[in-house]
């Protein structure tokens, strides 16, 4: 088990068996977060979803 905090609301977050690049949800504020490293466990706001034209 690893402990870290949400970069958006600073709530404490416990995570188990996650992978780098995995998207997790903050249980307090509900924002999507990306696991960017495991040792130490670090989270960043997950990539934005941007809309554009294209086909």
């Amino acid at each position, binding site marked *: 088990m690893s402990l870290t905090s949400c970069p958006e609301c600073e709530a404490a977050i416990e995570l188990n068996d996650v*992978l*780098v*690049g*995995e*998207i997790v949800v903050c249980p307090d504020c509900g924002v999507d977060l*990306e696991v*960017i490293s495991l040792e130490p466990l670090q989270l960043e706001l*997950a*990539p*934005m*979803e*941007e*809309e*554009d*034209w*294209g*086909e």
Partner: protein
Amino acid sequence: MDEVTLLEGLLRSYSPTAAEQLAVEFLAHAMRGLDFQVEVDAVGNAIGWRGEGGRQIVLLGHIDTVRGEIPVRREGDLLFGRGAVDAKGALACFVAAVSQLTIPSGWQVVVIGAVGEEGDSRGAKAIVDRYWPDFAIIGEPSGWDRVTLGYKGSLLLSYRVEQPLAHPAAQAENAPEAAVAFWNRLTAAAAAWNEPYQRTFDQVTPILRQMQSGEDGFNGWAELWINLRLPAWFAPGQAFIELSALAGAGRLHLLDAVPAYLGEKNTALVRAFLSAIRAVGGKPAFALKSGTADLNLAAPVWGCPAVAYGPGDSNLDHTPNEHISLSEYRRSIGVLKEVLNQLMQV
């Protein structure tokens, strides 16, 4: 052959839909020179592969472009030419990245330059049953630091209504007026469907493509060609049923239907892209596209993690100013190499 010579050669091989042979021959020759095994299949797709094994990654690009040849030229870092963005940049990125990898035992990486994507996707339709990849990447411009997770669906249909002619002063609804009334009912319904949704990706977008009308002395007629861009929550079949209920005296005829596709974020494929983009100093983002692509067609059949990726600004798709930044093109090759290396360690 270096990566810029490869892209420039593809651009010089002008290949509008249904006339791709020159570019297919160029790509097949280039891939042979880069240590791929190569075949040109029955519909004209250029297919190259490296490695042998039970696990497979398919990189599906398209080699056709829209019409309108643009003289190939360089201006500093920019390379101009039809298809620079949509999507020879992505296809050349695939070939260059795979050519620079050591493919581990047990893995095969396949690069496909498919024909017909700007038309009826006949190239992709011909290969979807030939491959069962573990991961799929579709070659479309996302920008080097973005990953495209989804494309909207599309429903193309015609609406035809006929009415007996009456004297214009009789104030009876004529066929053109009936067609306009149907279009107005359709747009009102779309506005109601869209009410809960903020994003264009989640909304129904009606587009009136063509309208004609005429009369033969006894009857008048009017015809509309309509394209509905569909969100993931609205299947083409359901949309057709809903529109049929609005058709009044007219009849709808289905011309083409493609469901929307929205891929998962929590897959090994997406994780590999996020870490590869961050590893070269980028801030990754996800893209959701309002058009359709071969991703819509192939991903549901293959059922594996699938995204679209490629260098370039899709705002330049289909424009007379189509060009790509060579430095972005090189960065996308670096990202893709890292992604493929990570996937083949799984």
